[in-house]
């Protein structure tokens, strides 16, 4: 690996579009030095070099390095797992489980319990792999965060801001549950500068924004064809990393292994959590309608079957 690493360090496993853009966003924010690793030789070094050569113009002071040696990621404050296969048009995230589970199992074994790192799971299907990683690595659940709900939330926030013509900075949205078409969008938890969303737009309109959010990832794959979304996912990862490294205590929906929340055990789904240096500090559970809770438990049951089938 090239260059010395001085400040806190984030390692990214998987130097594809998501991994490289995450490095880019982290550098622009000056949050942390970044180490890229990929199973494909050379790609990490190449992308890191390209990013560093942009630094004099973009004026970030963070160091980005690439390595082909997995051992180099030891001692990282955060390890982002963005390795694995991505969806093709028409594919559901769940269909990636078998092939990506193999990769995540191997990574869990290599990272092991000994690490003090926080792990951010990005590889799809993110909820299933978050649960799998906790089980296989033996790490405490508080230190393994999946990005599902945050990505869905930022997509909903954008749609609300666009429709209302009000600054995105004022939008507070919340999407929880599985990062699938069965995600839960409790209306009461979306507001603009504190004003409930349904005071600002009719329910029908909000419903169509919910639909847009549910299908946002699919839509991008359909349009771009040979790639999934990566700017919004990378921005979510960078924000989680920032909240960990700066111990910022942001309250964000992240996928975490559930232990009794909503009566669900042994599968991971997104719930609002306060994120700091040690990972999840607190979990907050939104009040759901009976329908929403039923939907959540049904999704959990499906995930449990998939996880058991994969064993």
């Amino acid at each position, binding site marked *: 690996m090239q260059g010395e690493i001085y400040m806190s360090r984030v390692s990214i496993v998987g130097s594809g579009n998501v991994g490289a853009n995450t490095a880019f966003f982290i550098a622009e924010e000056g949050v942390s030095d970044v180490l890229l690793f990929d199973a494909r030789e050379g790609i990490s070094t190449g992308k890191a070099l390209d990013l560093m050569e942009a630094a004099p113009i973009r*004026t970030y002071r963070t160091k980005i390095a690439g390595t082909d040696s997995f051992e180099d990621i030891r001692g990282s404050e955060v390890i982002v797992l963005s390795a694995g296969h991505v969806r093709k048009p028409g594919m559901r995230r769940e269909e990636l489980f078998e092939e990506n589970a193999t990769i995540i199992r191997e990574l869990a074994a290599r990272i092991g319990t000994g690490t003090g790192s926080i792990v951010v799971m990005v590889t799809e299907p993110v909820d299933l792999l978050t649960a799998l990683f906790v089980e296989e690595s033996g790490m405490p659940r508080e230190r393994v965060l999946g990005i599902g709900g945050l990505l869905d939330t930022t997509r909903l926030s954008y749609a609300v801001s666009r429709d209302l*013509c*009000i*600054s995105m*900075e*004022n939008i*507070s*949205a*919340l999407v929880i549950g599985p990062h699938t078409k069965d995600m839960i969008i*409790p209306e*009461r*938890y*979306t*507001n*603009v*500068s*504190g*004003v*409930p969303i349904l*005071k600002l737009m009719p329910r029908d309109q909000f419903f169509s924004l919910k639909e847009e959010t549910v299908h946002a990832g699919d839509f991008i794959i359909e349009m771009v064809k040979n790639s999934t979304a990566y700017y919004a996912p990378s921005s979510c990862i960078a924000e989680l990393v920032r*909240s960990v490294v700066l111990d*910022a*205590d*942001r*309250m*964000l929906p992240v996928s975490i292994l559930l232990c009794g929340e909503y009566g669900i055990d042994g599968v991971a789904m997104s719930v*609002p959590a*306060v994120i700091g240096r040690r990972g999840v*500090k*607190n979990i*907050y559970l*939104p*009040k759901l309608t009976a329908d929403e809770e039923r939907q959540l438990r049904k999704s959990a049951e499906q995930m449990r079957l998939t996880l058991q089938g994969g064993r």
Partner: protein
Amino acid sequence: MGKISVIGAGNVGATAVYYIAERNLGDIVMVDIVEGVPQSKGLDFLHSSPLRQYSVQIFGTNNLKEIAGSDVVIFTAGIARKPGMDRMDLLKTNARIAQSTARAIVRYAPDAVVVTVTNPLDVIAMVLLRETGFDAGRIVGMAGVLDSTRFRYFIAEKLGVWPGDVRAMVLGGHGDSMVPLTRYTSVGGFAVHELLDTATVDAIVEKTRKGGAEVINYLKTGSAYYAPAASAAKMVESIVRNERRLLPASVYLNGEYGYDNIFLGVPVILGKTGVEKILELELTDAEKIALDRSALAVQNGVQTLDSLYEEKIL
């Protein structure tokens, strides 16, 4: 790049310049009547630009002509109330400064949106409106953003979460007479009442009301300026970048919320043209009573202002 003029190069004005420069919101003119002060602060800012890497021009002057062509004028000039000074004296002095500034704005920056910070806020805003004769939407007072940022901070502090994840809407007059809509206060989407009991929220409301006083008590010889300047700069950013933020601000009401011919803090959308929309929310009886009380205080201030006009003091 747009042009932003800051009238009053005291702590609030100068700190607002700092925030505006750091965000590269526009070229900046600082005006103050004290000779040397705006010039020196302008230079000091420019000296730090190689390190801070902002690329805006900053220019200090004693001459109001220099505000020519401004897109936004921030009015922070005036005296602060000192112990023993009555509110009438404060109003007289600051209204006169507002009057002369307003005339300069009409003459040199006739297209500007005016963001006013000087106290008594809602009355000085009225002076600026009368003296400029601008469309009401181009005069906007900074109060609710400051009250709500303090409220948000105190809630975040209590819960141990990042302050940016707290959302709040505070209406009414500034400080003592503010009307926080606690049912519209949320943390990561959660209603604050789901996370804190009523007594705790009430205590935080009280703490917020006295937020300005708490800082004054520590400083003894001055008042808060970082949070006020940050609040004003936020409003300026929403205007010059046409960001259309939804935030509480003191604006001229013409029937909205049942009030006429006063400035009062209500939710608005701020964009390129100033106040682009006033949002009328349904209020509970208790909120309406509190807002009435706030409006009454402003009406009294406006009556005093009228008497100054009648006596030809203005």
